[in-house]
């Protein structure tokens, strides 16, 4: 597989300028002749659809939900980073770049990350102009807060629902283009295959989820913005129930390289599990860690109520082990530390799989009203779910899978290894390395959609010979037949277990053997268990109804089938990465202080996997990561 990242040469600061100059332009009159398919309407997909339509391209946008406003970007709570330096506390584009690449444990490209930091400020300008109701100071100017391990206050926020507000901004821009006739919006459609003609991505096959009809859609380029694959850990995940790897997986099977699938982020502040029937975990913004103090009882097995445990019998372990960052230590460190405490029997709550997040000190210092203003909706949510009042008693939290840094491999132009297939947002792998910093996902999704793809897709369309292709092309017919065949196979199993039960089993395997802390023996075992489960799935699935109708069980089964194949790739990738870095923690590679130990000599690369056909091991390739501008240092948050 050719892995040319196409990073322009020259100083870091001018790479993006240079690229924008070197990319060919599509003349204004010609833009309307190009049809572009966008799959997914989260921050990346909706912003890309809007921005491309504004330029004059004919866009067809697809989503699996009933309306584009539902994408799981809405669930992001904390905020969005930008290098505005409004608080005058020493931030800069360079610092945001450096923090992001260091946060990613030096497993991302310098060029991509620097560009992300550069466009971050444009995003805030644009979002404010769209009417996003960001938090403001009394003088009417924008407020900032420090977030998720940053030592500067660079995070813009809209109470606890920044993702929701940003997505509604994209959705409104998208709606405007739908009204203008530039975007054809097709909700309740699920992409089931990517169609290639002459090696170029030229369309997709989708299932109309209302009628069950299989539809073909042709275009000059295809943009995937289909989110991450955290549901491979379901129920130990905060992902929405519908989030799935299907579209990315089908693209992989058509030849798109999959990069770093083992880089999955575990979020430290989720509401703990309460029973087997639980469908997923609920995330609470880690902005809570700004004012909450994490602790466990010093004594393992301490059964007292938290209020009854005196101060000197509490272990504020993050503050103790990481004195300079304390409760704001990065996500992976905070998550593993919580697991470590629970594994020692110091976990609290009914399951012993939880630690306290205590606001008593903050309430005393700032007053209840201020805490309510900052976290009111999060506290309310917690109380609703657990039936406990966090103003009175400490919250309980536990980590859960949250975000996928890995994804389809893309070059600097966000194009995958398939020409004409672009991948944006969480679905690609590009900017977060082995670990994503808080408030950076929203930034990346919008950067990709608003400010990168509009340039780079033009460069591709203007510089590529694209023949006339329509929906009656043989490639569409073949793809549709394959899709139908796969659906029919699912119906013919006629076993006795539901798709949902397989998904939960898969999640348990992945969480146990490929979760926060991994080792080779466990990974090998997990891989075998996944293979066994997959076999059982194809022998024992039961699927009600038929394909020609609204059939949520079929949707689920199709997605679970993909997850069962994909999970094995995650484990293979985890086995192949002979180091610990960021969120990938292999117990064989750790410092004496139990911190992740990178191997920059051997492992400073992007791991890319290429599909080699049914029953064959995927082909492994490396994209070396070259650091010209920053020095690789060991992360230390002590």
């Amino acid at each position, binding site marked *: 597989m050719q892995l040319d990242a196409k990073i322009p040469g020259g100083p870091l600061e001018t790479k993006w300028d240079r690229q924008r100059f070197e990319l060919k332009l599509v003349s204004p009159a010609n833009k309307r002749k190009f049809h572009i398919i966008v799959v997914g309407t989260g921050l990346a997909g909706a912003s890309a659809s809007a921005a491309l339509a504004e330029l004059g391209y004919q866009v067809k946008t697809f989503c699996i939900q009933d309306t584009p406003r539902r994408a799981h970007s809405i669930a992001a709570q904390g905020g969005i980073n930008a290098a505005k330096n409004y608080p005058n506390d020493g931030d800069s584009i360079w610092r945001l770049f450096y923090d992001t690449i260091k946060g990613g444990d030096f497993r991302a490209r310098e060029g991509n990350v620097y560009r992300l930091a550069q466009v971050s400020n*444009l995003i805030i300008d*644009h979002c404010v*102009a769209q*009417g996003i109701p960001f938090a403001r100071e009394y003088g009417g100017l924008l407020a900032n807060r420090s977030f998720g391990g940053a030592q500067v206050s660079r995070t813009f926020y809209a109470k606890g629902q920044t993702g*929701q507000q940003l997505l509604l901004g994209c959705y409104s821009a998208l709606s405007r283009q739908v009204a203008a006739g530039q975007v054809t919006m097709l909700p309740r459609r699920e992409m089931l295959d990517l169609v290639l003609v002459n090696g170029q991505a030229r369309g997709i096959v989708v299932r109309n989820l209302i009628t069950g009809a299989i539809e073909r859609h042709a275009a000059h380029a295809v943009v995937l913005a289909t989110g991450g694959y955290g549901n491979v850990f379901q129920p130990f995940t905060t992902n929405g129930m519908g989030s799935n790897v299907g579209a990315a997986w089908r693209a992989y099977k058509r030849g798109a390289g999959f990069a770093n699938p083992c880089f999955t982020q575990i979020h430290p502040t989720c509401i703990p599990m309460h029973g087997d029937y639980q469908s997923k975990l609920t995330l609470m913004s880690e902005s809570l860690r700004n004012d909450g103090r994490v602790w466990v009882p010093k004594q393992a097995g301490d059964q007292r109520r938290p209020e009854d445990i005196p101060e000197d019998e509490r272990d504020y372990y993050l503050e103790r082990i990481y004195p300079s960052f304390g409760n704001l230590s990065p996500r992976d460190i905070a998550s593993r530390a919580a697991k470590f405490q629970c594994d020692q029997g110091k976990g609290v709550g009914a399951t012993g799989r939880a630690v306290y997040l205590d606001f008593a000190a903050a309430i005393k210092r700032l007053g209840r009203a201020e805490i309510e203003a900052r976290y009111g909706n999060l506290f309310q949510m917690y109380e609703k779910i657990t039936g406990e009042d966090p103003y009175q008693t400490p919250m309980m939290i536990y980590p859960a899978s949250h975000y996928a840094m890995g994804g389809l491999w893309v070059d600097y132009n966000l194009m995958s290894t398939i020409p004409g297939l672009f991948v944006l947002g969480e679905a690609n792998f590009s900017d977060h390395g082995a670990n994503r910093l808080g408030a950076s996902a929203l930034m990346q999704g919008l950067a990709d959609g608003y400010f990168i793809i509009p340039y780079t897709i033009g460069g591709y369309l203007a510089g590529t010979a694209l023949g006339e292709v329509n929906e009656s092309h043989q490639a569409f017919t073949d793809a549709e037949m394959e899709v139908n065949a796969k659906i029919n196979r699912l119906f013919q199993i006629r076993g006795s277990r539901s798709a949902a039960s397989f998904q939960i089993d898969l999640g348990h395997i992945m969480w146990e053997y490929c979760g926060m802390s991994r080792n080779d023996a466990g990974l090998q075992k997990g891989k075998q268990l996944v293979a066994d489960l997959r076999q059982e799935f194809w022998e024992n699935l039961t699927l009600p109804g038929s394909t020609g*109708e609204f059939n949520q069980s079929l949707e689920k089964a199709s997605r679970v089938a993909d997850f069962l194949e994909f999970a094995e790739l995650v484990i293979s990738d985890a086995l192949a990465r002979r180091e610990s870095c960021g969120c990938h923690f292999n117990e064989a590679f750790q410092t004496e202080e139990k911190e992740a130990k990178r191997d920059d000599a051997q492992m400073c690369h992007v791991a890319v996997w290429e599909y080699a056909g049914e029953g064959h091991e995927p082909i492994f390739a490396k994209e070396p990561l070259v650091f010209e501008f920053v020095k690789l240092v060991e992360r230390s948050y002590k």
Partner: protein
Amino acid sequence: MSPETINLTLKVWRQHGPEDQGRFITYQANDIPTAASFLEMLDIVNERLIVEGQDPIAFDHDCREGICGMCGAVINGRPHGPEKETTLCQLHMRGFQDGDTIVIEPFRARAFPVIKDLAVDRRALDKIIQAGGFISVNTGQAPEANSLPVPKSNAELAFDAATCIGCGACVAACPNASAMLFVSAKISHLALLPQGRPEAAKRALAMVAEMDRLGFGNCTNHKECQVECPKGINITNIARLNREFIKAAVSSPEEIPVFPAGRPEALQMGAK
């Protein structure tokens, strides 16, 4: 976090498709953990139905964190159930008693045709946003973010209105199936911000005209919408919409757009 369980009788609206008449079917839901959410309760029931070879109950859902707006059904006569400011996914079974009978119906409105069982088509709400629920700014045009101060109180009122998740509970709750709370939330959000003022008149006229065309009812100030809104959006927004509308109609040069007559395409099943 108690391991308690309860037994329930569910009377669920089952309807194969938009043309089907639909009917209530009774299910016995035993051993439901009280810590489960309402949707997890339906998951448990569906799991049993699937294993028995029956058709599971169709219902929309996604984030299960009360923010995406996709879930929703009428539980014993109340959209999203009996709890205040709660979506169905955040309604927990600890609020029900052992032996309760729960009647579950889809959101009912002419503008929200039933797709299957409890899943309804709410694209009419998208249509209203498309009519004008945006600020016309192209990517790249924006001025420096802090060049436009917004009074904190206005920003907060705008935020409160912008918290609308588009679930449609206001329509479902309204005895007239009116979408006024939904429309007013978007109108208010944008009208309260200086960025939204240039298009305020055009927006108010267009969104109201589109709302009317789609077959929603009229607001008669029952306040049911604000009682059932999972985000606590209140009817002062409707009053603001009324002001914005009449101001636009009487004092701005903008005309009320005339949308094509006939059955709105948003109401046609499976249409593009």
